[in-house]
């Protein structure tokens, strides 16, 4: 019996388990997936919780609903990978041998990397993250009674998961406080280590204009050193200070600590990965899917979904000793909530920045790339259904995994 082990049963791991179980014979291949958590989180939904649009129950389902029969599921912490012995050690001592390993352990926030963030007195009182369910729910409670003041939205470090989320958060906050009738009492400041609203020039301009339109101040090139809980300021390495009454932060993102224990990661615990084949650079029989890798594209569910096609094809090629022909292009596709029932959408890859146009059908849409429309917002709302019912199960989606220039205007 040959063995495939998948570490992590999030978006990537779940898709791979579904895709592989369909094609690999049960007599020859045993597939095992390991995750410490029994709950699957719909992470794109966390963003809506602070504004009361979604609640906790909208974003959680049991993982077991999405994993196919014939796959061995182990809910257990992972101690480390021993790539040279082709085995994984679980917490508690169980050992899993593998022929092929898929690492899909994602990225998580590490607020402890920034002095004064988690270890200060204001954490989850006046300082919040919205990348965890607990953080998003705590922020919801805070916003309910808040009467206004300085809201600072800060990104601590690059890369981070879902790069448009803090922008969406700012847009939604503008709409939320306007509807609550206290917008004139709320000063919103968007503080980023980037040189503008976003990285890619055309999208940065479009999103920068939207921020300005909504009276959200942008402070670029701010690299967070520490949070001063007494003075209530965030401080950069070049000693700029920005005061806040409530701080919403995207803390430093790192890969799983198991990567560090396995001595397989870079300085942020992301695994060096061939950006085209998605094979680990150091170990032929290991593929890295999604946020756990160091490939230079967004850490986002859409990327994981597109990349899963490539891992799937290349893993099957590797099994048959054929060359790895599938090449990932870095394709990323993000809906951007802009408030008041509108949304935008961007579609890009390693080589092409987000461009205006229509998506997915050239000239037709229904979605407008880099435009601010109601239809784009409906797309985001519908996506939650698509995610639970189609995407996780590894079924065909009407979107190609390779980015296309059709419908884009350069």
């Amino acid at each position: 019996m040959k063995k495939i082990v998948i570490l992590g049963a999030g978006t990537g791991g779940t898709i791979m388990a579904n895709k592989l179980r369909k094609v690999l014979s049960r007599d020859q291949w045993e597939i095992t997936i390991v995750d410490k958590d029994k709950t699957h989180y719909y992470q794109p939904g966390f963003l809506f919780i602070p504004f009361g649009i979604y609640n906790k129950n909208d974003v959680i389902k049991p993982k077991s609903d999405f994993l196919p029969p014939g796959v061995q599921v182990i809910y257990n912490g992972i101690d480390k990978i021993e790539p040279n012995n082709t085995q994984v050690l679980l917490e508690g001592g169980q050992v899993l041998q593998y022929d092929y390993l898929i690492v899909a352990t994602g990225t998580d926030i590490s607020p402890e990397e920034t002095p004064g963030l988690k270890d200060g007195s204001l954490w989850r009182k006046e300082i919040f993250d919205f990348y965890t369910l607990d953080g998003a729910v705590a922020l919801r409670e805070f916003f309910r009674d808040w009467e206004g003041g300085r809201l600072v939205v800060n990104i601590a470090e690059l890369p981070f998961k879902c790069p448009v989320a803090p922008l969406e958060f700012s847009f939604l906050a503008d709409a939320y406080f306007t509807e609550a009738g206290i917008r004139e009492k709320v000063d919103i400041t968007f503080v980023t280590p980037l040189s503008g609203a976003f990285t890619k020039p055309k999208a940065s301009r479009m999103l920068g204009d939207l921020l300005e339109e909504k009276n959200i101040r942008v402070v670029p090139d701010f690299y967070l050193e520490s949070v001063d809980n007494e003075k209530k300021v965030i401080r950069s390495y070049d000693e700029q200070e920005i005061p806040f009454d409530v701080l919403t932060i995207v803390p430093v993102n790192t890969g799983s600590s198991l990567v560090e224990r396995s001595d397989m990661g870079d300085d942020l615990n992301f695994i060096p990965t061939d950006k085209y084949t998605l094979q680990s650079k150091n170990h032929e029989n290991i593929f890295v899917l999604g946020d756990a890798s160091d490939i230079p594209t967004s850490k986002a569910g859409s990327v994981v979904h597109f990349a899963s096609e490539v891992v799937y094809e290349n893993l099957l090629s590797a099994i048959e000793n054929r060359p790895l022909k599938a090449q990932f292009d870095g394709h990323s596709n993000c809906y951007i909530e802009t408030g008041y029932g509108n949304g935008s959408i961007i579609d890009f890859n390693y080589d092409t920045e987000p461009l205006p146009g229509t998506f997915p059908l050239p000239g037709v849409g229904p979605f407008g790339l880099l435009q601010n429309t109601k239809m784009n917002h409906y797309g985001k709302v519908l996506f939650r259904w698509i995610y639970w019912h189609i995407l996780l199960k590894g079924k065909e989606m009407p979107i190609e995994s390779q980015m296309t220039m059709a419908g884009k205007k350069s």
Partner: protein
Amino acid sequence: MAQKTLAGKNLEVTDEGYLQDFNQWNEDIAREIAREEGIELGDEHFQVLNFLREKYQEGANLTIRKVGKSGITDIKGFYKLFPGGPLKKASKIAGIPKPTSCV
């Protein structure tokens, strides 16, 4: 694309002044670019520049954090050596491409 004369050499640079070919770099070129940025280079600067060139050749993603963990200086020190945008400025002076922040 643009042409620029640095340390007596005619070089191809980007519109923002980053060298096109990192092999054409030498320490005199570095000093001249640094002067334009208002920085006089010392030993510690060169240690950082060489670290960046080495990591760039290895294909690593360059970050301010990585320089902070290099053992040459910490992040605060890096800001003091190259005030303003340390990674952007140091990359320019080191003759490597402008860092792309991937998000």
